[in-house]
């Protein structure tokens, strides 16, 4: 379901249900983009008043496991939790968990 909301009601995590274009029909932001604070700020600066958002889609267990497996594939080098790659992997897995939890 799409609904139009004023940009002032937009919140990070909401998903754009319709691409944002400028008056020359140039795509500024594609449909399906999850909003971030930065993006909302930018839209507000561009004097965009209303946007279409989608109700948050749940991440299925399968999607979660597939994403997790892809992350594991990227990190085959040996490292410990304090190394740079170790920290990045922890941060990524935390990010994935939070996406799963919030939906």
């Amino acid at each position, binding site marked *: 379901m799409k609904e139009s909301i004023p940009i002032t009601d937009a919140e990070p995590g909401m998903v754009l249900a319709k691409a944002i274009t400028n008056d020359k029909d*140039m*795509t500024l932001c594609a449909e399906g*983009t*999850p909003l971030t604070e930065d*993006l909302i700020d930018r839209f507000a600066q561009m004097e965009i008043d209303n946007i279409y958002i989608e109700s948050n889609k749940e991440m299925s267990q399968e999607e979660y496991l597939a994403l997790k497996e892809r992350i594991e594939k990227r990190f085959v080098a040996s490292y410990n939790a304090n*190394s740079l790659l170790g920290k990045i992997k922890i941060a*990524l897995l935390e*990010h994935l968990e939070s996406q799963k939890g919030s939906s």
Partner: protein
Amino acid sequence: MEKEVILDKISFRKKVEQLSNLPTLPNLLDKFTRMLKDPKTSMAAFGKELSKDQMLTSKILKLVNSAFYGFPGRISTVTNALVLLGYDALKGLIISSNIFENLPPEAYPLWHHSVTVSLASRAIARELSLPDIEEFAVAGLLHDIGKVILHVEASEEYRTVINQAKKTKQPVWQTEGEILGFDHANIGLWICEEWKLPKKLTIPIGYHHMPAAPKEYHMRVAVVTMADILVRSIGGGAEDDLPLETPDPIIEVQVPLTLKQIRKLIEGIAPEFESLKRLAPKEIN
């Protein structure tokens, strides 16, 4: 292990250097560069002169106002763009836009990767409170310019390289070195020198896979290399999910990010990458 060298380094370098004469590099840029050479040109005068060129003006304004390049937004004049981005960043942006326009569709992931690395470079520079963050963004945008040139100028040979890297799970740049005798960072360095970009942009582009090698600008190289690693880690590599290589220790020294900062950066760039993936370069360049 013997491998056939399929491109000759010297003749390919010559080819790369001659690219500046090809129509792919706009004569707009020549004008831009000529004007820059005159130290007496003030930013306002320069902006005014540039504004006379309709094509260049619309191109610049379109680029700087695109949500994807993440520039400060709602920039309505060229002088404004110049003040906010600086000459060097703006010049790099124009170059990048023209180069990426010629990218074949199979190499679009390279453009998605480059724009995301640009966003990540800016985000890291901002996180570390560094000055001139737009220059970091442009260095990020152009860091794989050598790959773009390989895709456009030697597509068949380059396909061999990519397939080999996927088979052996070796980093692409090392595979390039083994097969071609030079890698995309070398090409990036040649072409940036040819375009007379300043060292602060040339060095991060030319050394992003060997961040300890240059004598100066270590911080700038480290930011771009770190951005490249972060973008690959979220699945934004230009060539599928190749394993991440262990980064040079200099990265952590130059760019000391905490776990919390890394998490924040990932949260910022992951959604941008997801939405970029749906676009082709010409839609926003």
